């Protein structure tokens, strides 16, 4: 598939008739990627509008309005980023990385505490959660460090360096505490290293170490009385193995989500949905929004949404192979992994096959920071795509 770069690219249809589309750069963007992202964001607005009608008394479109604004802002941001050459971020890697760490750390000082965890700044119009944007920043910075350090140090030293670079922000986020997002940081780090060519043997060692760490944290640490995870985190992580009848229990929530999705059957229950309408499923506008889709629109609706995600990730992987330089390859790979990890863990959690980790469903879950960050990441993908097309065009023109 990588061989396409060496083949002569086919002429762009609008290449010889520069018009408004040419000036907007549209021909150089990945239309499928844009449609998938915009479609998901639009569907999210639609679902929230239907499912949260009665949530805020007197304001039936509270979530709908806000999510629509975030989506529009995000799409604008996506376009702006698409027009910028992403390669500049490689030069700014140190600044980006510093900004990432500082912004995530500042939450501890100025952060707004919600449900026992400080994750966001309270701004006049919405609360900004730096760790969400941090996902994209981590991809951009880490890819730069990997390219930059490709010739410095032994392979083992490089691997340790990358791990340390990824670990620092992940640890800060973990301490907020936000276990889910820190896991996303971990997945991004591993993916960038993977695409960046870190040896398979190193991954084997990392995998073994991770398995040991998980065992230590979940089983050994509580047993010897020095728990690393908060009790609710531990409970949520292990609850998908034992459904519970206690409504305040994580296992109960997950079981309810499973019932909600199952009860949607093939075509969904529409407004007759009870599981997600009568509060049996918690967090229905954020972490468990997939359960809402499953119950309301059935297999048809849920499979449609999953297909859009599949399209999104396929296009991201395709862009990995198109990139004009290896920085773009690493960035696209990191973003693809970030999306894949979040979609799989969140949907898996809704379907009862993954633990509850508090990871939102990208573009679908309600929340400005997440929607914005994801659309900006898609913007970076578009930029990589555009730069690749432009460079091909340049070669073609020569």
């Amino acid at each position, binding site marked *: *598939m*990588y*061989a396409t770069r060496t083949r002569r690219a086919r002429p762009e249809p609008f290449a010889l008739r520069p018009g408004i589309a040419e000036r907007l750069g549209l021909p150089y963007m990945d239309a499928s990627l844009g449609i998938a992202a915009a479609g998901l964001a639009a569907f999210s607005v639609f679902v929230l509008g239907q499912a949260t009608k009665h949530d805020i008394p007197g304001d039936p479109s509270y979530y709908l309005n806000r999510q629509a604004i975030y989506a529009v802002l995000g799409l604008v941001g996506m376009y702006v980023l698409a027009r910028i050459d992403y390669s500049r971020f490689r030069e700014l890697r140190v600044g980006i990385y510093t900004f990432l760490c500082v912004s995530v750390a500042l939450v501890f000082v100025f952060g707004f505490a919600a449900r026992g965890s400080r994750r966001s700044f309270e701004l006049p119009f919405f609360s900004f959660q730096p760790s969400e944007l941090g996902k994209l920043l981590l991809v951009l910075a880490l890819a730069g460090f990997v*390219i*930059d350090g*490709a*010739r410095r140090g032994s392979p083992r030293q490089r691997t340790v360096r990358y791990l340390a670079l990824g670990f620092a922000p992940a640890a800060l986020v973990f301490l907020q505490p936000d276990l889910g997002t820190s896991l996303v940081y971990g997945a991004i780090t591993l*993916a960038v290293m*993977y*695409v960046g*060519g870190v040896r398979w043997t190193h991954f084997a060692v990392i995998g073994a170490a991770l398995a040991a760490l998980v065992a230590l944290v979940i089983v050994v640490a509580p047993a010897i009385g020095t728990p690393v995870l908060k009790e609710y985190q531990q409970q949520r992580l292990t609850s998908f193995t034992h459904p519970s*009848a206690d*409504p*305040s229990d994580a296992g109960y929530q997950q079981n*309810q989500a*499973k*019932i*909600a*999705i*199952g*009860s*949607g*059957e*093939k075509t969904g*229950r529409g407004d007759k949905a*009870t*599981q997600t309408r*009568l*509060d*049996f499923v918690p967090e229905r506008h954020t972490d468990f929004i997939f359960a809402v889709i*499953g*119950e309301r629109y*059935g*297999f048809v609706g*849920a*499979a449609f949404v*999953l297909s859009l*995600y*599949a399209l999104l*990730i*396929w296009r991201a*992987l395709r862009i*990995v*192979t198109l990139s004009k*330089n*290896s*920085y773009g*390859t690493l960035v696209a*790979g990191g973003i*693809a*992994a970030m999306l*894949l990890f979040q979609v*799989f863990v969140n*949907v*898996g959690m809704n*379907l*009862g*096959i993954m633990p509850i980790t508090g990871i939102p469903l990208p573009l679908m879950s309600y929340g400005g920071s997440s929607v914005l960050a994801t659309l900006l990441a898609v913007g970076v993908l578009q930029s990589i795509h555009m730069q690749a097309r432009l460079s091909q065009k340049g070669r073609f023109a020569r």
Partner: protein
Amino acid sequence: MYRRSDELGPEMNNRLALRIAVFGGFALALFAILFFRLWFLQVLNGEKYLAEANNNRTREYRVSAPRGEILDRNGRIIVANRTSLALQINPRKLPAEEAERRGELAQLAKLIHTTPHRLRKTLHEQLLLAPSAPVTVRRDVGDYLVYYLEENQDRFPGVGVQRVFVRRYPHGTFAAHILGSVNEVNEEQLKEARFRGLQPGDEIGQEGVEDTYDHFLRGRPGIKKIQVDAFGQPTRKGQLVSTPPVPGDNLKLSIDSAVQEAGEAALAARGLPGGFVTMNVHTGEILGLGSSPTFYPSLLTKTLTQAQVDALYRDPVAAPIIDRAIAGLYPTGSTFKLITALAALESGTITPSSVIEDGGSFTVGGQSFQNAGGASYGSLTLVPALQVSSDVFFYTLGYDMWDTGQLQRWAHRLGIARPTGIDIPGAEEGLLPTKQWRDELAAEGLAEERPWSAGDNIQLATGQGDLQTNPLQMAIAYATLANGGTVVTPHVGLEVTDAAGRVLKEFAPKPRRRVSFKQESRDVILEGLHEAAQAPGGTSYAIFGGFPTPVAGKTGTAQRVGHEDQSWYIVLAPYPNPRIVTAVTIEEGGFGAESAAPAALQILEAYFGKHSSGESGPNGGSPG
């Protein structure tokens, strides 16, 4: 490794292509898992989850149905209902915080005069039976407590008051041993077929006719189905369906309040433990049945204190809960002579004109048996022997039949030590000593046991020794002789009526069996009993001599080891074609004529006082 920091060489390209291909394959696999799981949940198991979702959102509340009333044969109310306030805890609404919950329960425990430990235990036990259903922790709470809880609702989340039906007994202790009580169905009962469909917390009859006729009395609880949210709060317009409760049907007993009251009063007046039964000899309908000491059935509608439990149940001798009329185990004294006489006549041991010499004592194998009071009556035939209750006469019969088994055979036929089929649970069968029984005991080698001897049969012939029976079995034996051989099934349930009084079902249980004997035997024995009651010189002439209705009655004085003599009296009336039989026994009451016979007289006075026309009572008719 990289040729240029920003440009990948062909070698790396291939390796990268492999990595991206693996990445793509991995992504594909993850999506395949998600799609398959989605398919599994929604398409393959959708129906199951839809049912679960519907079950989730609906809550069924049972609206308890009032139980049917219990009436006497004339329609007088014996048991009715009243409404009462019951304190319930809804475990789903209790504070989630452990310490807070404990605090609330501790406060509540104080208000309802129990310990926090006991309250939590009740809660825990009920929750095991029916998770998350409201638990009734106390019935009959006073208004003051209800007001207090309502004013302080925020301090007692999850605590509520519900209106429930409680049994009301307008006549105090009246018929306590017949009625039984009503209480929550227990775990073992829920497994029984007859209680299928009931839920923990539902009430059923426990003991007495409340138990036997529970099916008719119980009624069907109504069901209110409402839609609730995850916190169990009803949603707006959430009423889905509702079926109103169906009240239970009324049960009419064969009990005649006048007879019942007279019997209870007669026992109470003597202040000694005892029992009585008055029964129609043709149908087995019981007109009165009671036991002393008695109790207030209303006690059983509330949670008993330990002291009350002790008083009701613990004392094995004086326990008021025991129904001595059907569960007593006593020798009968001379009232057994009716059976001995019938056995002797029917087995050809004697004829009505056979003469036996009563010299005051009877000696066999060196053992001497005396007449009570040391009397001696000279030459006797059966009728005068019954009239004066000559022991020697019957010792002789017992001796004559000692190894023929005839006495046991006839006692068995007349129902001694056999199930009676009465519709009140808790009856005891008793013991009829036989040769086989005693020989087996002896064979087991128990030191104090010996093989069957003539002395055993001589004892049995006069209702002493190992015999264990009760007033009900004796009444049935007397009724069988009086009615010409029908062993009736005693019963107190008469009919089931609906609220409007229409009869839905009548109870007329078939006789247990028929026994055939010569009409002459019956007549001569009844004549002897009539002479005993109402001819000068008869054993109870002092009591019944002046009674306007002709009767046939027999006294009995049973010797019980460790007790004073037990007084018995069994009377058939009116003579010669009896309609009713009354059997009375009074523990430690002395001679039969001393206490049991006067008690029986009181009962007959009540019965014939009402049916003063005498010959044309409601169940008149000639015996077979």
